[in-house]
């Protein structure tokens, strides 16, 4: 294929699907709904256009497990657009991208350095591969009750103490928009012979705006997991895995194929292709709009009083090396309400659904699809809530991050002999399962970590305020599995 074919105005998967439709094939292959003819209710609900392209891999459409034509070309265009050496279209969510990064770079018993406030998908990967986590505690903003980034000096310290570690994982940014110094961390990792992996589940926009923090690929990181479906506009569950020059893509492919569906959805893949084209051609303009809208909302909310919509003023050059101004995180503690309470009131009373509410903050996700008038609704609703629901703020908890005591690796704990105990009797035991609020899905307790009174108090408080607690086998979260005979 010549240069003309591989340019950002093209969308190879979309074009191939259009050709496939025009060919009017008689489908004697799966899926069995046969373009919706076998499932009218589904066609009625999702729309005929959708079912027309819900097809299986075939010669003209390539195959995600072994891409040699249109999918390969779409991946090349995505790599080009994101400034990576290679890209992989992922259909198992950014969870699958994060897991592929970790499984590709660390083997059983090898070490990986990571902040403890990672998404559960990262720790799940450690259960799968048996690697040993070396946690760097994120800094915490006491007033906002959020964990920040990692101090560069502490990560380098961890590298020096664990020279055998194979990789370092960095959130770029966190859910709340906080960035660590990924450029210097990448350089430090490389000088220690380690790979730098970036969880960019919330960072697609960094690749397309000069006004935002640096993207992982732009500073030479080795791999990045990018949730195009979050800020980039593709369908839920579609994601990109980006790799740099020094990554063996054949091996990464093998790792991906261990767990990836062999019937990857063309709805997801075409949405990645179309979104990549849109971002490559219009990204700068799109995200300028998002930044402007978010800044407007931030100023309006801050001028209401009683809320704190934080922004670039948090930057301290270290644990908050940079801030993603497209994130609208709002601390609600000054009006005496936990974030989760405001989140619930907004949904139940005002028909406004936010991205998350934790015990101190709410997060409104502002993106490519937002309109000014909807921002006005959010700001007005917050004004009304402040008047009608405010309480005495003195009884609120803030803390979001609790330093873990690690007794066993996640894999050892997960596969250990277990016993189930009532939650309140687990203090001092070693957890064999996760305990977290979802969202944000950052474990309060991960397998292998010691249960403390502090953690149980936090969980009890979060539960009372209305957070959704997940992780344990017991869906009612009254019991927790712990390791039998930890031998400590």
């Amino acid at each position, binding site marked *: 294929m010549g240069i003309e074919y591989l340019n950002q105005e093209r969308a190879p998967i979309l074009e191939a699907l259009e050709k496939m439709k025009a060919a009017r094939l008689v489908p004697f292959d799966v899926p069995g709904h046969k373009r919706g003819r076998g499932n009218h209710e589904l066609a009625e609900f999702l729309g005929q256009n959708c079912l027309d392209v819900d097809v299986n891999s075939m010669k003209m459409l390539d195959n995600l497990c072994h891409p040699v034509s249109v999918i390969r070309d779409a991946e090349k265009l995505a790599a080009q657009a994101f400034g990576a050496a290679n890209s992989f279209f992922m259909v198992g969510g950014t969870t699958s991208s994060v897991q592929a990064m970790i499984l590709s770079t660390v083997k059983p018993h090898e070490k990986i350095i990571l902040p403890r406030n990672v998404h559960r998908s990262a720790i799940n990967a450690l259960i799968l591969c048996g690697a040993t986590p070396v946690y760097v505690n994120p800094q915490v903003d006491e007033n906002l009750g959020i964990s920040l980034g990692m101090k560069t000096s502490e990560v380098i310290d961890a590298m020096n103490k664990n020279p055998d570690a194979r990789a370092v994982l960095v959130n770029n940014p966190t859910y709340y928009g906080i960035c660590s110094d990924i450029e210097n961390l990448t350089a430090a990792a490389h000088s220690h012979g380690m790979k730098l992996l970036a969880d960019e589940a919330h960072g697609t926009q960094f690749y397309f705006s000069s006004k935002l923090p640096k993207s992982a690929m732009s500073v030479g990181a080795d791999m990045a997991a990018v949730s195009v479906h979050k800020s980039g506009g593709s369908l839920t569950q579609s994601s990109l895995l980006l790799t740099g020059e020094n990554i063996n893509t054949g091996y990464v492919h093998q790792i991906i194929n261990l767990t990836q569906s062999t019937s990857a959805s063309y709805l997801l893949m075409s949405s990645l292709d179309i979104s990549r084209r849109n971002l490559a051609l219009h990204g700068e303009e799109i995200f300028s709009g998002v930044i402007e809208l978010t800044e407007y909302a931030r100023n309006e909310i801050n001028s209401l009083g009683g809320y704190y919509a934080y922004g670039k003023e948090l930057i301290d050059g270290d644990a908050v090396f940079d801030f993603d101004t497209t994130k609208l995180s709002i601390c609600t503690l000054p009006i005496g309400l936990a974030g989760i309470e405001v989140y619930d009131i907004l949904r139940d009373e*005002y028909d406004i659904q936010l991205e998350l509410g934790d015990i101190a903050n709410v997060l409104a996700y502002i993106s490519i699809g937002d309109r000014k*008038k909807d921002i*006005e*609704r959010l700001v*007005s*609703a917050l004004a*009304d809530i402040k008047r009608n629901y405010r309480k005495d703020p003195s009884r609120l908890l803030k803390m979001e991050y609790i330093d873990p005591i690690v007794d066993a690796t996640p894999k050892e704990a997960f596969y250990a002999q277990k016993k189930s105990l009532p939650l309140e009797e687990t203090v001092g035991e070693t957890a064999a399962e996760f305990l977290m609020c979802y969202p944000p899905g950052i474990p309060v307790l991960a397998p292998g970590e010691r249960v403390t009174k502090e953690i149980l108090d936090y969980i009890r408080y979060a539960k009372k305020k209305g957070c959704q607690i997940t992780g344990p086998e017991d869906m009612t979260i009254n019991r927790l599995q712990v390791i039998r005979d930890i031998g400590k």
Partner: protein
Amino acid sequence: MELWFTEQHTPNVRFSIKVDKQLFSENSEFQRVDIFDSAEFGRFLVLDGRIMLTEKDEFIYHEMITHVAMCVNPAIKKVLLVGGGDGGTARELLKYDTIEKIDLVEIDAVVVEACKKFIPQTAGCLDNPRVNIFIEDGLKFIRRVENEYDLIIVDSTDPFGPGEGLFTKEFYGNCSHALKADGIMVNQHENPYYQKDAVAMQRAHKRIVNSFLISRVYQCHIPTYPSGHWLFGFASKKLHPVEGVDFRRWKNLNLQTKYYNTKLHRGAFYLPSYVEKLLREVEEN
């Protein structure tokens, strides 16, 4: 040659007016704005394909959205008009010499300019010094206003376009806050007949009931609006729309109206049983 304007009242129902000519058409930042001239209804304003007013029947809507509240409390001095860029409601308000100031907050400048040029019957009053026009989102305007107005009239488009934010709890809550203790809010409340509109009407009513102590609905008949049967909401922290109202006082003002009268005022609050039922459904839970 025949030229017809057609509005889709529901996916299965159409309402058409024979058009003499089109006078204006522009896509504004918020919506498509059209003005047509016709033999039957005179000039008429259309936003995103929906008739907002016609010269022939606009008096019904504008009188009913204004005089009910003015009769309940003739001492009203400061009025906030949200929407109403066509000027019809402002014209009715200006009939009261006692009103000192009308703040008109219209999101779309194109509506105001087009009406001034082509529908002077309603917009002719907009240069009156008692009318202050703000081109702004009403939801934003009202956010920081406190204890300021005697009357707020929500003269909005339907809840499926730019007026969406004016049918929400946050808007009504902020209105309640912007009103004085004896303030009144009147809003256009959609039709109760077609299902989609009736659901929107119920949602709006539920939100108003939550924000105001007194909340009643009244009706009128508008030939060019979907189903012809139209509702308005009357909400207040203190004043009842009928009980204790001194109707003679309003009569003594000797204002000229074509639709509104004090007998009709009382009668307008008697609603069909199915409408009462729709309202009760949301008042109870």
